[in-house]
């Protein structure tokens, strides 16, 4: 069995989520990695993908039409290559979620989204109802199209492999869409979904000023990424790309520190696979304490600065 993985990359480096997807793909068969992009960065990413442990071959599609991973352009490329593969895997990221169903429908395949585990070549588990239930589903399609939840699989080693890089070409620009621009949040901190430590703030922070005044110094001390609950984002205390939860990002760091977060189901769905959860909340009955390994009850405006000072 052979498996195609669409590798997401940034600045010439495959993203961590793609390393996890390679691990998932290895459970199904021989892994070929598709790198789509343009110019030197794409070439660099392909060379890096060739070094990922477990990748047998890299396909590089170099075309300006693939620079911004527009689904209208990338999906036909994947579909053209699909014939040689029994399964096609994507990350369950904003790129994977955008492209994969377009590929699946073009192949007349019912996609399996957000795969948590691979039970066999045709049977997978996935979360439904915001993670309140886990379904085991069996696919009857001859070819499988999956999106893989990165936090559910360990990352493949970024080095150790020595795959060959082969150039492939697609149809390029489908002429349906164009990229206008992006507003990328710039941060010195680690990326939320791959950080070892995450410090998240909730509605109890009360304002955007207090959110940053209380959360940021602690995050800096711990070398942590900063997250937020949906309530905090909706209230405007933190930008949307901080959001951890079913409607935001799914994280599973070594240590997750939840500050002033009550622990709505929505939020828990996004962080409950963290190795150690620390909760600081003034309400000792808050649901967050039911999942926290370490809890501290009290006023976050006293506790967090004290904690930051003592670290």
């Amino acid at each position, binding site marked *: 069995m052979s498996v195609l993985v669409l590798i997401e990359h940034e600045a010439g480096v495959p993203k961590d989520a793609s390393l996890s997807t390679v691990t998932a793909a290895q459970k199904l068969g021989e892994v070929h990695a598709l790198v789509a992009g343009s110019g030197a960065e794409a070439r660099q990413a392909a060379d890096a993908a060739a070094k990922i442990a477990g990748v047998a071959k890299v396909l590089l599609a170099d075309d300006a039409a693939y620079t911004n991973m527009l689904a209208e352009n990338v999906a036909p490329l994947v579909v053209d290559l699909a014939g040689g593969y029994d399964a096609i895997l994507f990350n369950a990221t904003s790129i994977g*979620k955008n492209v994969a169903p377009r590929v699946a429908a073009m192949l007349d395949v019912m996609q399996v989204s957000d795969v948590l585990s691979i039970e066999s070549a045709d049977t997978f588990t996935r979360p439904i109802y915001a993670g309140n*239930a886990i*379904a085991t589903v069996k696919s009857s399609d001859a070819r499988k199209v999956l999106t893989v939840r990165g936090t559910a699989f360990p990352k493949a080693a970024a080095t150790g492999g020595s795959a060959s890089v082969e150039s492939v070409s697609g149809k390029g620009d489908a002429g349906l869409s164009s*990229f206008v621009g992006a507003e990328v949040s710039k941060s010195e901190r680690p990326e939320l979904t791959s950080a070892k430590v995450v410090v998240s703030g909730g509605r109890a922070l009360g304002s955007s000023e207090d959110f940053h005044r209380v959360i940021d110094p602690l995050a800096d001390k711990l070398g942590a990424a900063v997250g937020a609950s949906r309530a905090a984002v909706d209230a405007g205390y933190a930008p949307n790309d901080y959001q951890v939860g079913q409607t935001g990002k799914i994280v599973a760091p070594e*240590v997750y520190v939840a500050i002033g977060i009550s622990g709505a189901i929505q939020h828990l769905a996004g962080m409950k696979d963290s190795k150690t959860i620390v909760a600081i909340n003034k309400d000792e009955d808050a649901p967050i304490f039911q999942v926290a390994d370490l809890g501290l009850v009290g006023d976050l405006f006293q506790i967090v600065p004290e904690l930051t000072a003592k670290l």
Partner: protein
Amino acid sequence: MKILVPVKRVIDYNVKPRVKMDGTGVDLTNVKMSMNPFDEIAVEEAIRLKEKGAASEIVAVSVGPQKAQDTLRTALAMGTDRAILIQTDEEVEPLAVAKLLKAVMDEEQPGIVLLGKQAIDDDSNQTGQMLAALSGRPQGTFASKVEVKGDKVEVTREVDGGLETVSLTLPAIVTTDLRLNEPRYASLPNIMKARTKPMANKTPADYGVDIAPRLTTLKVEEPAKRQAGVKLGSVDELVAKLKDLGVAK
């Protein structure tokens, strides 16, 4: 320009889903059902586009049981013009829903199809993208802003790193994210008025679409529960624990 808004009847987002004891699914008996929240945002956005003069007619469509009529009535009460129910008691997967919607698109020729990015029951996040593929049209997924500009629509998308804007040639498929808008409540007079708005009743067979599922659900379980840990007495204890974990110096 016509806008087509597909809506789905799902468990109300305030209800905590309970897994059935026999592991066959989630218990929906006597559970409050509502319009999928992301679809509600799509209905709202369509109405706003019409209010701005960018759209002339809004057609709501739903695939589901007879009760999905209630969901369509909600869409009509909010301000859509007419509705189509494609009635079936079978569970219809996103691929089959997309095929049905493609058939509706062929009939209705909308300029934009606006729908939620995912339904909060199966969380698939597929239907819009699949419809875009089947109709050969562009897709603007996870939209936080939608602007019609001549024969194009500009969609600002919520992506992992922030925001991204794409320009799509109409007709296009747009899927909504949470921050696009805040849906309005239907007023009582509008709820009354909605009762007389036209609703067509169709079946999947009318469109010649095979809705046989490709996936079989073998079992549905509750996720593994985390054990509650310990409550600490002081910040010093927490500092010590964080040092033990190797995250603090």
